[in-house]
């Protein structure tokens, strides 16, 4: 699973950090840093974080399958 956070939308509520502290972390009081590539054992927690984000800023999905070309 890959994630990207729309930090233009993010307001620093940190719900994702509470629910998935191994993937998301606060840098200072409000800045959000995260691991874009989610380890398998954190996927369930990240799904909670995606659902819980008060501004729905987290997109989870798979990378483009860009092999064909």
């Amino acid at each position, binding site marked *: 699973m890959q994630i990207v956070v729309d930090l233009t939308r993010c307001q620093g509520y940190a719900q994702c*950090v509470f629910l998935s502290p191994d993937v998301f972390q606060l840098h200072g009081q409000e800045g959000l840093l995260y691991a874009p590539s989610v380890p398998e054992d954190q996927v369930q927690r990240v799904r909670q974080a995606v659902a*819980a984000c008060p501004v729905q800023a987290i997109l989870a999905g798979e990378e483009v399958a860009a092999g064909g070309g």
Partner: protein
Amino acid sequence: MASDTLLARITDYANRPDPYPLYAELRAAGPVVWQADGSALVGGYHHITALLHDPRLSADERSLCGRSASEHKDPSFLRLDDPEHHRLRTLAMRPFGPPHNPGRIDAMRGEIARITGELLDALPTDRPVDIVDDFAYPLPVSVICRLLGVPREDEPLFRGWSDALVAAADVRPGEDTADADRAGREAGSEMRQYLLDLAGRRRGNPADDLLSDFVNEPDPSLRLTDDELGVTATLLLIAGHETTVNLITNGVLTLLREPEQLERLVREPGLLPLAVEELLRYEPPVHMRERAPLVDVEIAGTTIPKGTSVFLVLASGSRDPRAFRDPDRFDPGRTDNEHFGFGGGVHLCYGAPLARIEAETALGALLPRLRTARLADESPPYRQNAMLRGPRHLSVRL
């Protein structure tokens, strides 16, 4: 009926089981709906969002016309504005969550699951279960006691104080609230003293709980004063269980009334995180919050004078068709669900992550039993409170 009686009708106990038609009436009546007592109701999603993020809207009761400071001496950060709100909330957050303790709530998942399992195992089999008293109330109480460092066996003691405080904070237009206010003040004073005594015993003798962390903070500039600790701990203890009980109970009631969605959840348990968010939108534990403009504020062409009591009807905003497709449908698969279940802006619920984990754990564990469950009472009795709305009992045959 006249729209200036909406608040009275919303708070009328007879309408507690289904206030949603009144919210639809509120949204139709305009962005700002004036009440006979001079207060204003706001029920539209986008206007509520704007006001929740407007720094000119005060959460402090002392900003309301005609309320004096002496009545409400030590407000918690719930009813303070920045910068004081930010200072106290940040201090209260240090032992509870990020950035200083990001893993504390996550680390409680196992314990929450264990308590949930014990409660389920102890459910009576010889009579209908009261979801409230047998499950949805004891779970968050046990969790917040464990987290704060309050003896679980003291529950009868602080339940009385909590009831009085919550009643005093309720909105009852047109009623004489002097007695309730006095009872609330007395309960608050006793509860603060009780929690301060508990905290005092942790000083120099810390256990793994928030009270210990608060009193043993080594940096004096980051330590709450006794007054601050008393009101903060009181807030956390009350908020930690008065709302989650509603969330869990509303969840059970909603799922029993929506057997198709219940089946869907049983089939697809991966939807549970989304289902909890949908419950927070569809049947939220907190229905409204009061604010007061610090200056005259204009919203959608209407000026709200300084000091007006403004009720942001969160539960109405979360049912606004301008923000949610098919808002009166309970859809546990709903995405992009930016509901007001925990409010929004700087006052967004401090304990939201804990409530989410409790609700998901509780409903997830109960799901298999709900498939064959039946409501023993199709019209469960509600608690008096209109702001913190939920059933007082929910009798279910499992």
